[in-house]
């Protein structure tokens, strides 16, 4: 989760729900003091006010939908509505004048403010009644006020300016002077200066309703503790008294700031207090994974044997060369780990720089897993890092590629253990809280990238087709005239239908080879599906087969798990279990065979086509070490992807169950992998590009900063 969404946060004006509503809605339901304000509010439309309130509630809910479902944690803006309640202490702590001009005493919590206003209304009503009685009594007795009465009256001359003007002209207003005789002039003069029956000494209580079931809106605001009640009420009371210069509760008055807890408590209690200092020790560990994104890269320990076997298989080199390669690799890995995070390991172990995780922006796991699959592809990386904005225009697609380039560079050369896709996602205009199909997303991205690369160097123009594009050949043979027609078609990914209900009942778990075989088998075009033969010039029965005339270096196989269910008219996920071969032999139409090695698997966890979670299992091309990427969480996989097997293994050693999660598979052609790894792209060739220089500089600076 990132904190860069403050631009969407609701400002204080639009979030003025509580205070506004308190004031406007209250007279409708209020008792006591509501009567005197009724004369003004009668003219208002209460339903209109409710409607406004409703609109504001919708606005608040949209804030949770669009900005922060955790009501302000991730919203960095200062005027966040929910955080306003946490300012209660600073409000009270300010050295304002000792007045009650602000009828809420400056407390920003809407709930506490509403209690104060309620209390104020009650007190005002009582005071008004008292004054009314006095008004009725005085003219009858025609008594000249005593000195004490005069003093008492003059004490009340400090007025509350917040009472409505209409209150004074109200029929029931105790300050109405029409019936008072000339002998009361002195008292009237005092009373005419008043606009409210309350004064400073009529202190207003702050009290939460003590009823057990009572609940207020701020109970649902984790930032508000002012409305918690209990001792907090006493505390607020004291602070308000302090602010008004009134006498405070004794228990708070005489405690100096530097007094320790042991001076306050008796021995019985004090001896059980631990670590009661201003800088406390939090003893327990936090269990969940970190989401801070500020951690520097750490090491992951790998068996040397795993890497040696991979290098020997892929590079087909001598032991001496393997040793040299191993030394280079170790140096390259250690360079990116923060020195403080490197631990000593035995000679049989290898210090591997743990790959980078990607933070989830809401529902962007599809994007994260797709990026992890792509970043492991050295040739793709090479291409993207070489890209420069040659036409100099800041077109939307250039922005997308430059942010992708920066992201990939940080993933490979950066210092941070977790990176964020905020920039890339916003450049693409993605809705972060909306899950998308990773394959559709990849197709869209590739299309746009390809379009943008066309304005770049010849190498980049052909980057994507040279990596992912293969060619199919459809051969259709008319059974009547035996004529064969051929049609070629390019593909960037191979979409294999699942067997579903057509599967033989004896088969519970399919292998990928079986799916591929089923895909390539001869199809009979008959019945309603007859073929129009050009030579016969009629619809005839035919045989159609698909063959590969060109195979891509990186084969992207997508399993068509999502199908449309005609019974429910909704998409559903086929849960067929698939076993994944680590090597795959595919024969071209001309008989030439190509060996592919499994290098990445994108998994969809969950049984619904509309929800779930995407994770990626990816192999490091240089070392053959597998990692699982679950957003920020990166874990090493000693045995490679779940449900994968080596075809050379005996059947009894293969996994017992296939996976119903595997969704998108990447296979790399062995000779292509060999050539790519031999070039040692990461360590040497790419080190020259400007973006790599820039990120490497950042890495050094981060490490130095951390050391300091």
């Amino acid at each position, binding site marked *: *989760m990132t904190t860069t969404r403050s631009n969407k946060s609701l400002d204080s004006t639009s979030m003025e*729900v*509580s205070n506004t*509503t*308190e004031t406007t*809605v209250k007279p409708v339901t209020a008792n006591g003091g509501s009567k005197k304000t009724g004369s003004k509010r009668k003219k208002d439309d209460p339903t209109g*006010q*409710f*409607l406004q*309130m*409703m609109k504001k*509630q*919708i606005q*608040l*809910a*949209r804030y*949770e*939908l669009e900005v922060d*479902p*955790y*009501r302000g*944690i991730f919203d960095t803006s200062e005027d966040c509505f929910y955080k306003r309640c946490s300012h209660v202490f600073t409000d009270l*702590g300010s050295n304002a004048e000792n007045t009650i001009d602000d009828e809420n005493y400056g407390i920003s919590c809407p709930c506490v403010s509403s209690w104060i206003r309620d209390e104020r209304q009650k007190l005002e009503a009582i005071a008004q009644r008292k004054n009314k009685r006095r008004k009725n009594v005085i003219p009858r007795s025609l008594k000249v006020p005593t000195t004490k009465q005069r003093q008492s009256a003059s004490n009340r001359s400090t007025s509350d300016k917040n009472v409505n003007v209409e209150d004074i002209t109200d029929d029931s207003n105790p300050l109405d002077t029409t019936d008072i005789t000339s002998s009361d002039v002195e008292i009237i003069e005092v009373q005419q200066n008043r606009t409210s029956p309350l004064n400073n000494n009529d202190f207003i209580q702050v009290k939460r*309703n003590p*009823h057990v079931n*009572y609940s*207020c809106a*701020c109970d*649902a*605001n*984790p930032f508000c*503790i002012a409305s*918690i*009640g*209990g*001792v907090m009420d*006493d505390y607020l009371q*004291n602070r308000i008294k302090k602010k008004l210069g009134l006498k405070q509760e004794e*228990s*708070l008055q005489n*405690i100096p700031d530097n*007094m320790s807890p042991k001076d*306050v*408590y008796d021995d019985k*209690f004090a001896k*059980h*207090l*631990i670590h*009661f200092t201003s800088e*406390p*020790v*939090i*003893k*327990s560990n*936090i*269990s*969940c994974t970190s*989401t801070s994104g500020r951690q520097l890269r750490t090491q992951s320990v790998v068996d040397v044997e795993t890497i040696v076997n991979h290098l020997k298989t892929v590079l087909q080199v001598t032991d001496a060369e393997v040793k040299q390669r191993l030394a280079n690799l170790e140096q390259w890995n250690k360079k990116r780990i923060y020195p403080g995070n490197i631990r000593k390991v035995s000679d049989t172990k290898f210090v591997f720089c743990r790959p980078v995780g990607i933070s989830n922006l809401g529902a962007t796991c599809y994007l994260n897993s797709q990026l992890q699959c792509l970043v492991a592809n050295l040739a793709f990386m090479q291409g993207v890092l070489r890209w420069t904005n040659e036409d100099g225009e800041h077109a939307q697609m250039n922005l997308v590629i430059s942010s992708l380039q920066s992201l990939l560079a940080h993933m490979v050369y950066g210092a941070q253990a977790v990176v964020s896709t905020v920039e890339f996602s916003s450049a693409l205009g993605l809705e972060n*809280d909306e899950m998308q199909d990773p394959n559709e997303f990849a197709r869209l991205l590739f299309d746009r990238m390809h379009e943008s690369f066309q304005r770049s160097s010849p190498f980049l123009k052909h980057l994507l087709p040279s990596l992912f594009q293969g060619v199919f050949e459809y051969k259709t043979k008319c059974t009547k005239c035996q004529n064969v027609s051929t049609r070629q078609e390019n593909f960037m990914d191979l979409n294999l239908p699942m067997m579903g209900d057509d599967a033989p009942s004896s088969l519970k778990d399919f292998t990928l080879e079986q799916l591929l075989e089923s895909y390539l088998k001869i199809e009979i075009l008959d019945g309603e599906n007859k073929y129009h033969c050009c030579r016969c010039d009629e619809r005839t029965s035919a045989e159609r087969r698909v063959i590969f005339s060109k195979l891509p270096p990186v084969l992207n196989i997508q399993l068509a798990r999502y199908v449309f269910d005609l019974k429910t008219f909704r998409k559903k996920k086929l849960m067929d279990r698939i076993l994944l071969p680590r090597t795959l032999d595919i024969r071209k139409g001309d008989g030439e065979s190509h060996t592919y090695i499994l290098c990445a698997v994108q998994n969809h966890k969950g049984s619904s086509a509309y929800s779930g979670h995407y994770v990626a299992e990816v192999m490091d091309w240089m070392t053959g070490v597998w990692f699982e990427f679950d*957003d920020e969480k990166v874990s090493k996989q000693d045995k490679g992807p779940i449900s994968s097997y080596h075809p050379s293994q005996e059947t009894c050693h293969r996994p017992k169950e296939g996976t119903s999660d595997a969704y998108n598979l990447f296979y790399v052609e062995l000779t292509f992998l060999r050539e790519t790894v031999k070039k040692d792209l990461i360590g040497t060739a790419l080190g020259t590009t400007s973006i790599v220089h820039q990120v490497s500089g950042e890495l050094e600076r981060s490490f130095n900063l951390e050391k300091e």
Partner: protein
Amino acid sequence: MTLHGYVCYVFLILTRLIETRIQDQNKKILHRLTCRRTGILNFLLDDDKCVDSDLYWVNGLVFQNFMSCRDPMEDLFLRSTQSNGPILCNSQNICQHGKGLHPREFRKGKFLSKTKFSIFCNLIHAERNVSLSLDGKEVSNAPIYDFAVTSKENIFCHECVNEYRSDLSSKVDVASLLVKVYVELDPDSAPSIVDSTMYAVPKSFVTALRKFAVKMFKFFSSLELGSSTRCPFPGIDYFEISEWSPLSKEDLDPLVTTMISCKFHRVVDAMTN
């Protein structure tokens, strides 16, 4: 002394003993509560200068009981003593995915600064130990909490957020639609949208629908969660449309046009209603 007198005497002695015991217990509890109050007023709340950016989440109900200084919280201490486990169990609030807090669970809590959180824990810890030692029980070193839930580390769970947002989104849609329909059906204002297709709706239906809408607006504006509160509604998420079917068929016609259509053929034959 007769037997009856002897029984009465024993009964009186026992009653006195029990009374004394209860008084002692009450004194102990009162002592604890007084200490708690002192601690809260002087240390927990006397913290203006605190600028901790890291916030610690605590269960709202536990914190409210603690702050009330009326609840001795003995059930909490008893559970911890019996299981020798932590006094504050945040693991009970963690979401099913084990990653953090569901937004609905999250807002049932309160945030404290690191300093406040530490003082809160220490006061709870001291109270538990005082309670045990005064009862003559062994004071164990059980942890105060199982693990801390902090704003920066382990609150966010994206699965829960997705679920919550989808749920809330549907409620917002209903509420927005209701506002829109209410405004559109205002008899005093001209229709804002001029459409080629016009629909005939009985006046009685419009009135009933607007009444229903107003009732809901009132509910949203001042929800009475407790005995008497006029505080604003704590959020649209509290709204459950399934619980809102208070109107009988007479109030809100489910077929909408019954009043203005032919009883048998359902054809609108009058525009006067």
